[in-house]
């Protein structure tokens, strides 16, 4: 399924954005903040002594992580997702750059589950 097709189907019958769309957005937000924390803020702290970098990016990533986890549970609570797929979604939040692959995984899962 292409991104355009996903966007077209990204609304619920009542006009709300679909949970899948929110999950994709939250996974990308989480992935970007984790990458910035690991690749920019932490090196700046240790190499250049800019502790403020991690003091800002740490909480921002923490918030992104919480939003992502909330969105995962909000989406998978319909009971149609396998435990292994849920574990993959949760674990991807802990591995730098793994979150960038999550949107493709979500689309693949969505295709496997049938359009919801």
């Amino acid at each position, binding site marked *: 399924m292409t991104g355009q097709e996903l966007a077209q189907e990204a609304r619920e019958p*009542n006009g709300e954005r679909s949970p899948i769309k929110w999950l994709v957005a939250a996974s990308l937000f989480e992935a970007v903040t984790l990458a910035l924390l690991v690749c920019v803020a932490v090196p700046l702290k240790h190499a250049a002594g800019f502790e403020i970098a991690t*003091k800002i990016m740490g*909480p921002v990533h923490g*918030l992104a992580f919480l939003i992502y*986890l*909330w969105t995962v549970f909000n989406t998978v*609570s319909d009971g149609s997702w396998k435990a292994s797929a849920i574990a993959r979604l949760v674990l991807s939040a802990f591995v730098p750059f793994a979150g960038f692959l999550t949107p493709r995984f979500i689309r693949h899962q969505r295709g496997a589950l049938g359009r919801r």
Partner: protein
Amino acid sequence: MTFYEFLPWLTGLHVAAVLVFAGGLVGETIILAALPQNQSLSQEQQNLAAFVHRLDRRLTAPALLLVWILGITLAVTMGWFSETWLQVKLVFVLILSALHGMQSGLLRRLANGSGQVRGQALRLTIILAAFVLVAILAVVKPF
């Protein structure tokens, strides 16, 4: 006014957001428990679910977001992230957040005419116990 003079305001707003979130989460849990389990809802019950879902989106979910933002700001400012009481409290916060996420998803499906209410009996006990432990950990800071 310095940032540290502003801290009591942050704490007050955090507690206020927790109260709104707790009221919303407990309220919607009780309403879900009162709905018929493991069967489709009548049109009237579906309308009730839609109303609770709107309330959740406009009040409870934003309150949870505010709880997270203010809580993280307080913990960073006070240097609490290394303290055990906060780490234990965070586990219960994650449980409450996950339960709210699941419940919010269920309300959305019920409001759209799909989904069934299941396993609500134990949920209220878990939520109340988690809120009690969070309050004790935050106020007493036992370890």
